[in-house]
């Protein structure tokens, strides 16, 4: 290890990741020398107290978290649609339930569309980089949002055939299918997050994706509110709903919705703030 690298090793990892290469290039240009290395070593301690703020890194990290929590929230939303809306649970005299269904449908679709359109340039940018640099693993990560749902659907069709059609899926099978769906969503969302961490993209595509994530999360928060309104209303006024899903399960479900919506909104907001702070 050269003296310069030894001095750099005294800095926090985030500092080295952000400035390490630049400092080594600086030392190459300036000829280095004991004085330069000593000054580097001397300044290492304060760097531990004030780590660097890397806005692109903040955007990437927020995007990865928001994507994962958004997927979980969308999964919870689909469970909600399956157990309520698609079962025709709409007690008369409570129009807010129908309204909540309509708001949920529109906001879920809009949120997915905004996230997809906003994230597409970044996805293409990373795919091009992975292709150019022959990074097979990163290409697999980038295609996981397609591969995981396809694998899940194939599994779902095979399961339905095995149990004698959709009507053969009882409560136990429904639980298995639902958990498998969440696992597929998590895998699909984790892929691009890992690619973001490994490929470290920057620039307008990253800012666009971070901005779109903020808008998408805000719209998805409205979907989460619609879920809460519908589930609370059904628990209060729909007897058949209460008979099928007790209050404890509804409470756990709503807590998960609130947690997922909060994580999504906070992460996306942090990423968007970092994107807005970077001038074009």
């Amino acid at each position, binding site marked *: 290890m050269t003296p310069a690298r030894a001095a750099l090793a005294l800095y926090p990892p985030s*500092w080295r990741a952000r*400035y390490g290469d630049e400092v080594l290039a*600086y030392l190459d240009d300036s000829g280095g020398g004991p004085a330069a290395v000593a*000054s580097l070593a001397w*300044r290492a301690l*304060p760097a531990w107290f004030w780590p660097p*703020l890397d806005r692109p890194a903040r955007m990437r990290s927020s995007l990865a978290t928001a994507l994962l929590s958004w997927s979980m929230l969308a999964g919870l939303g689909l469970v909600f649609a399956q157990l309520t809306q698609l079962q025709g649970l709409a007690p008369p005299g409570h129009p807010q339930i129908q309204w909540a269904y309509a708001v949920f449908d529109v906001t879920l679709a809009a949120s997915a569309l905004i996230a997809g359109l906003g994230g597409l340039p970044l996805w293409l940018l990373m795919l091009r980089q992975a292709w150019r640099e022959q990074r097979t693993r990163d290409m697999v990560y980038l295609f996981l949002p397609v591969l995981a749902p396809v694998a899940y659907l194939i599994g779902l069709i095979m399961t339905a055939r095995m149990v004698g059609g959709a009507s053969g899926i009882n409560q136990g099978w429904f639980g298995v299918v639902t958990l498998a769906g969440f696992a597929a969503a998590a895998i699909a969302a984790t892929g691009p997050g890992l690619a973001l961490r490994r490929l470290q993209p920057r620039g307008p595509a990253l800012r666009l994706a971070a901005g779109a994530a903020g808008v998408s999360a805000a719209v998805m928060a409205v979907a989460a509110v619609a879920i809460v309104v519908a589930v609370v209303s059904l628990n209060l006024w729909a007897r058949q709903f209460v008979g099928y899903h007790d209050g404890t399960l509804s409470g756990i479900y709503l807590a998960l919705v609130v947690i997922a919506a909060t994580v999504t909104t906070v992460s996306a907001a942090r990423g968007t703030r970092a994107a807005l702070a*970077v001038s074009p």
Partner: protein
Amino acid sequence: MTDRLDRWADPPLLVLASLADEPKHGYAITQDVAETMGVRLSAGTLYAVIARLEARGLIEPLESDDRRRPYRITMAGAEVLAQQSERMSKVASVARERLSTRLGWVGA
């Protein structure tokens, strides 16, 4: 004595002043500061200052395929530099005026 007083120069201000005309990478900043302002910034000081200015949004890195990443001053950075320059200008003006009164010094 003069060399020791040079150490009072505020490194963040020197870096901002260096970036005021065009973006520069680390080594170009130290060269510019040394040539135009007569102050030598060490590697440790320079990158501590760059990290601080970047965290405060006063400078920002530009895209680069090279390890030598250039930085440019932001609008906020330009405002801070303008305010500080104004203050320094007042200090210099007062100093020159009083020195000329007391010592008959007319300055360079």
